[in-house]
């Protein structure tokens, strides 16, 4: 059974928000209606975003790490937002496991938003329906796009390749390999939602610097001493040669 999902590598995410802006742009220009903004150039801007990048500081100053944390709908394998929807607008596709909202059926009761522990769903203030990450289902199923472009906008936009896309149930896919080999984990596993999106943990890179690397042990100047210098009165090489 296919389960498409994203794998987000927290080790290389630099918090540039390219995924946020590309997602907003792609989904705002689509046929489903814009992701509306309220007061975008004003004092208290607010708007609908499918993907947000948050920043967390781990540790106590001065021993801190900054973790940039992109979060969007995790397309859970056991999504809590689907059974609670009274109209059936919230559904999980059987063919690829993407959780979607049917904007024509949604009544905007916000029950699904209360049912999602990750806060992945938002009410669009203009359209008054619930919206969330669609895994760019309109991009990945668009036969008119080139094969390499049939990925979610955020995956294509990420400059550090922190976002990977694929089928996590296919053991040979890029995402399954990443999860397996780099210890990919799910968020809030205590609630049993089995999110399909996984995160790759931070890895510590250390470089050991040894004393002998700073100084060459076979430095000829050290071994042989300084070059021989003629007495003050005698002609030196500098007097008879030109460079």
């Amino acid at each position, binding site marked *: 059974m296919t389960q498409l999902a994203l794998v987000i590598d927290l080790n290389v995410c630099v918090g540039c*928000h390219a995924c*946020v802006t590309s997602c907003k742009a792609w989904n705002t220009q689509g046929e489903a209606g814009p992701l509306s903004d309220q*007061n975008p150039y004003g004092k*208290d*801007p*607010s*708007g*609908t*975003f499918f993907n*947000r*990048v*948050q*920043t*967390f*500081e*781990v*540790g*106590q100053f001065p021993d801190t790490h*900054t*973790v940039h*944390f992109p*979060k969007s709908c995790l397309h859970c394998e056991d999504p*809590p937002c*689907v*059974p*609670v*929807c*009274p*109209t*059936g*607008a919230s559904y999980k596709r059987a063919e690829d496991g993407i959780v979607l909202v049917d904007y024509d*059926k*949604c*009544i*905007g*009761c*916000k*029950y699904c*938003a*209360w*049912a*999602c*522990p*990750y*806060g992945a769903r*938002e*009410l669009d*203030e203009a359209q*008054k*329906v619930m919206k969330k990450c669609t895994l760019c289902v309109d991009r990945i199923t668009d036969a008119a796009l080139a094969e390499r472009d049939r990925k979610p906008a955020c995956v294509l936009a990420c400059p550090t390749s922190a976002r990977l896309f694929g089928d996590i149930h296919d053991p040979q896919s890029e995402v399954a390999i990443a999860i397996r080999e780099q210890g990919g*984990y*799910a*968020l*809030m*596993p*205590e*609630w049993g939602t089995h999110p399909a999106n996984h*995160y790759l*943990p*931070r890895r510590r890179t250390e470089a050991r610097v040894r004393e002998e690397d700073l100084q060459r042990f076979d430095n000829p100047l050290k071994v042989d001493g300084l070059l021989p210098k003629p007495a003050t009165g005698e002609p030196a090489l500098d007097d008879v040669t030109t460079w």
Partner: protein
Amino acid sequence: MLLLTTLLGAGQGLFLALYGADLYDAARGRASFAPPFVAAAVAGSLALAGGGLAASFFHLGRPERAWRSAAKWRTSWLAREVIALPLFMLLAALYGVLHWLGMLQAALFAGALAAAACLALYLCTGMIYACLKFLQEWHSPLTVLNFVLLGSASGFTAATALAAWFDAALEPGYRVAALILLALAAASRAATLVRNARLRPRSNLQTAIGVKHPQIAQKAQGAMGGSFNTREFFHGADAARLAGVKWFAGLAGFALPAALLALGSPAAAFAVQIAGLLAERWVFFAEARHPQNLYYQAIS
């Protein structure tokens, strides 16, 4: 949502009060049961339930599609409530009509069905909240119990008030029942407060972002203004205001109505009780700590 659940609960309670008295009356061989009282009680019950329904209708983003909301009754408690609520109102109205027409036996039967629908409706309304397992403050049978007891308490207070106007013989019995229900409701709500105070959240920042370090602090939420996530799940009140509302809910929802009932002014008791119960419902929503709040703690 406050208006929906409070008014609806009161309307249901009033109907149960009416039906209970009708059964008792029938058991005693139809001694006295003034038709104006029945009419007033049914009308009041339907008015309260209808008012609650209208309030819920307008809280929807797209109310014109509300007719779709019964579709997923197999999985969604909200869909089940959308079926149970009109069913209850219909059966209660039928009960009222049959009673008015003098067909008392048929009315009793219709009333039994309406009472069953009423209890099912309490269950559905409570389970909408109680079924969300990570909202630990709500995920308990006490939630459903509170809906039943609080609704019944307010309904019986309304019945006492109506009895005072339309059928004085029933008033003492209703008053005692209302006081007992108030006491039970207070006990149940207090038990909920105690339980919630002892809760340890199972989610924390460590599980929320998957970093196993004891000290994690959010520095940025990804938006400088607010968002749906900061408006919907945060009540925006500080600790002092929350405590103030809790005290008001306790006084106006339980203590004052009990006193007013005992002193013999049930109408005032009902008015105060509704205000107190609205506050209590606000506290119910405010005390829920949604795990998504972990992701929205600091605006940088």
